């Protein structure tokens, strides 16, 4: 029963963390893209091309390997728990 509780609450907690990190990571990426466009087109206010550039960059980011690394949020705690279980219970 304790194990089920750990899995359920752990999954819920880690999912919240996963969502937060993926939103954060995408937001940082978007800011970087906006700044890159602003630097290349100083003084221009062609919002349509700016948006297109940012959306293209975000789409490239979504298809890249980086956002998949956030899945480690689930993997690392599981591995840590397994290591602790092993080290605590062997003598």
């Amino acid at each position, binding site marked *: 029963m*304790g*194990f089920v*509780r*750990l899995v359920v609450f752990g999954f819920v907690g880690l999912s919240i963390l996963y969502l*937060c*990190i993926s939103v*954060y990571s995408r*937001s*940082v990426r*978007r*800011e970087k893209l906006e700044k890159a466009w602003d630097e290349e087109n100083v003084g221009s206010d062609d919002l349509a091309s700016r948006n297109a550039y940012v959306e293209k960059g975000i789409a490239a980011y979504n298809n890249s390997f980086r956002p998949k690394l956030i899945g480690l949020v689930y993997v690392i705690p599981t591995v840590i*728990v397994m290591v*602790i*279980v092993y080290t*605590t*219970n062997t*003598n």
Partner: protein
Amino acid sequence: MHRLKITFRVIAFTVFGLFLHYVLPQHDVVKITSTEIIRTDFSGFNRIFYAQADSGAVEQPTRDLRLINTDKKKTFLLGFMPRDKTEVMVYRNEDTGWIWPPYFKFDSSDLQAESASVARGDSWAVITHYGWRVRWASIYPNAIAVKLLDSPDVRVIPWFNIFFFGFLIVGIAFLRAMWMQFRERSIDPLIDSAEDRFDEASADIAEQKGRVTRWLGTWKKKS
């Protein structure tokens, strides 16, 4: 207000520090003198300082508690400065199970056997434990592991705690960065647009006022 803030921070910091001091593993250099089992009836107050029944067993209001009796080397500064004096220390030996604190300990019986075996000899050992000994509330620290020593003069490096605090600092820095990003990208623009609207509204009011005073001005005598 400033003083209230400081008081609140000091209290929060102290509670957090005490919590970590209770939960994080510590190492004691001990001579195990005996092991025993006592029947324990928990009170509502000291119940939270005990774990649950052995992880395969069912929870009852009263149960047997494994204890490890030792002579412990005294220390200063949370164990960082060893001393020559010894004192008596009693550890409980309970499964922490799957939940809290996350030691995932299921081998209490094995640990008890190990301790009994160490108690037969006269050698020193390191006991890893968490928790406090509070005599007036009958609270014991929970032993996690026993390791035999050649001599009592050892310096145990708390690797787990080093990594834990390193990770804690990184985690707090990361959460802070996340919060700043959220504020910069999501909250500040909202506030800006609200301020803009407020500015427009007050400009409107000023303009209307201007119209009214101008109209009133037309009634004034022209000089």
